[in-house]
């Protein structure tokens, strides 16, 4: 069976790390390249972490391209307090055997889009700086992509502020450029990712699969459980991993086509993905907003994938 190409743009990050592990065993997509961006932690860390996790997954053949070290216009905003000093909950993986490629992330996105004309899915699970730069540099890029699937935003609520989700808050201008670029954008925001959670017990079940990768997935996610207890969620949200699974197979998700724009000027609402799902007034529809999923199927997929790493 021929799988379609996927490029992952990430700020690895504990849940990005698990998302990378998932990319090895997808049903419909094959990871052809990874680009890195500053977000959860600095881009040097996210790039090293990406190389390390790809090695852990046995995917040393996938090239890594380093991207933006800071947002388009605003000051960098990181999440060391969530992801630890090194970005992987301070779990030390072996030093990577290779370096990132020389090409910049935004050039790489364009090169792969051209190579797989009309077939490439870009899954972006960090701030959208690299994609915004790629769109700026290559105006034909949106027309070359099959779709852009992002982890970011929320139709309702936020997590960094009451109104904004981290990835969009970290670079609101870039996010608005992506939402309005003309390519089909799918938004896996907090509306769905907060429903894609694993309890402490379920994380242990993953680890009990026995492989190094499964134990790592549990250990790296466990560190952020405390933040979700404060949110009164039953477990830890698999923000980035569920986004990869949605890109691979959206059959067990609910999606609404709606208008989404990013507030860049509000004092309290900067970084809010203003989503026209419920109001009487219609904005121009530009995004597929993922609102819900079948959590049982999601869990089953996670165990299926992680079991493929062996025992």
């Amino acid at each position, binding site marked *: 069976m021929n799988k379609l190409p996927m490029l992952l743009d990430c700020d690895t990050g504990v849940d990005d790390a698990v998302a990378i592990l998932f990319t090895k065993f997808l049903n419909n997509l094959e990871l052809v390249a990874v680009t890195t961006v500053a977000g959860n932690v600095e881009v040097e860390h996210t790039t090293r972490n990406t190389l390390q996790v790809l090695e852990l997954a046995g995917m040393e053949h996938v090239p890594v391209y380093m991207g933006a070290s800071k947002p388009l216009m605003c000051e960098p905003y990181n999440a060391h307090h969530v992801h630890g000093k090194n970005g992987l909950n301070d779990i030390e993986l072996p030093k990577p055997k290779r370096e990132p490629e020389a090409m910049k992330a935004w050039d790489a996105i364009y090169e792969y889009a051209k190579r797989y004309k009309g077939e490439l899915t870009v899954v972006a699970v960090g701030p959208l700086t690299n994609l915004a730069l790629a769109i700026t540099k290559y105006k034909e890029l949106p027309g070359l992509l099959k779709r852009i699937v992002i982890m970011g935003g929320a139709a309702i609520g936020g997590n960094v502020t009451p*109104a904004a989700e981290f990835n969009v808050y970290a670079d609101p201008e870039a996010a608005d450029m992506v939402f309005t670029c003309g390519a089909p954008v799918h938004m896996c925001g907090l509306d769905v990712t907060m429903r894609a959670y694993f309890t402490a017990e379920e994380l242990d079940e993953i680890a009990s699969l026995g492989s190094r990768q499964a134990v790592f997935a549990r250990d790296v996610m466990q560190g952020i459980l405390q933040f979700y207890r404060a949110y009164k969620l039953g477990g830890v949200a698999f923000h980035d991993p569920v986004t990869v699974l949605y890109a691979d197979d959206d059959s067990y998700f609910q999606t609404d086509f709606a208008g989404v724009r990013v507030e860049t000027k509000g004092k309290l*609402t900067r970084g809010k993905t203003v989503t026209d799902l419920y109001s009487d007034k219609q904005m121009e529809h530009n995004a597929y907003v993922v609102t819900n999923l079948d959590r049982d199927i999601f869990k089953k997929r996670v165990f299926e994938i992680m079991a493929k790493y062996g025992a």
Partner: protein
Amino acid sequence: MIKRIPVILDGDPGHDDAIAWVLAAASPMLDIKAVTSVCGNQTIQKTTYNAGRIMTLVGLHVPLAMGRVKPLVADAIIAPTVHGNSGLDGPALPEPADKPVDIEAATLMAQILEASEEPVVLIPTGPLTNIASLLLLYPHLKSKIRHIYLMGGGIDFGNWTPAAEFNILVDPEAADIVFRSGVPITMAGLDVTEQALVFPEDFERIRALNNPVATVVAEWLDFFYGFHRSIGYPGAPVHDAVSVAALIKPEIMTMVDMYVAVELTGDYCRGTTVGDKLGVLKQPANARVIMGIDREGFVDLLAEAAAHYGKEA
């Protein structure tokens, strides 16, 4: 005989304001001290005239004062698509029996607060222009305000824009003053009022009561539903009546204490009530936000209020 709660009704009628006031005037729990009008659903002249007509219909003979001609800072926005050209289109209504008093709404409120032995509840169901004016002009009377039961805002979504609800959008600065005032607030926003749906079969139940007020309420609902049906609603969301219902029958609602702030700037979010559901800002709660309602209990309450006018006749 229970001690009645002194209240001031402040609104921009408007069909749902009108039904809110029918509910308030029928309640043996409430002692309505005054009514004030605000510009919102229609111009201040029209909402004041409508207020007089509603008061005459329900036999409410207390002072009525007209509010400011426009919001504190912003330009007025009106909603003729929802409430018609008069602001209260539909059934014929009696002409106002009494003239508005010759003082500003905020000044009338201040006089009532000063004269009242116990703190007074304010029930604003329009933009918060008058309430903010009261707080700005008579800050020493804040302690005489027992509680504000307001219809406005939405934590999870808006209506007039995707992010903002009409009453707050019309006068965000006034809303900001009210939410920062420290006065206890119960917020009936879109989160609950969009659940407070009155269905066409409920209109018939009220119409069948066959008294002059019930008949008018049924016809207001007919008119109000016309707009909402056109945008896909299965019933009429009687937003403003939820604020009165929250005071007289809180047991049919679920409420959450929350920190709420009003966005004053932004390309898309001016007028948004930003509610910190997860507590990420670590601010103390300044509002009790109503998030759910027993719809049937709400309809029963409206029907009982409408029936009350038959007993009086």
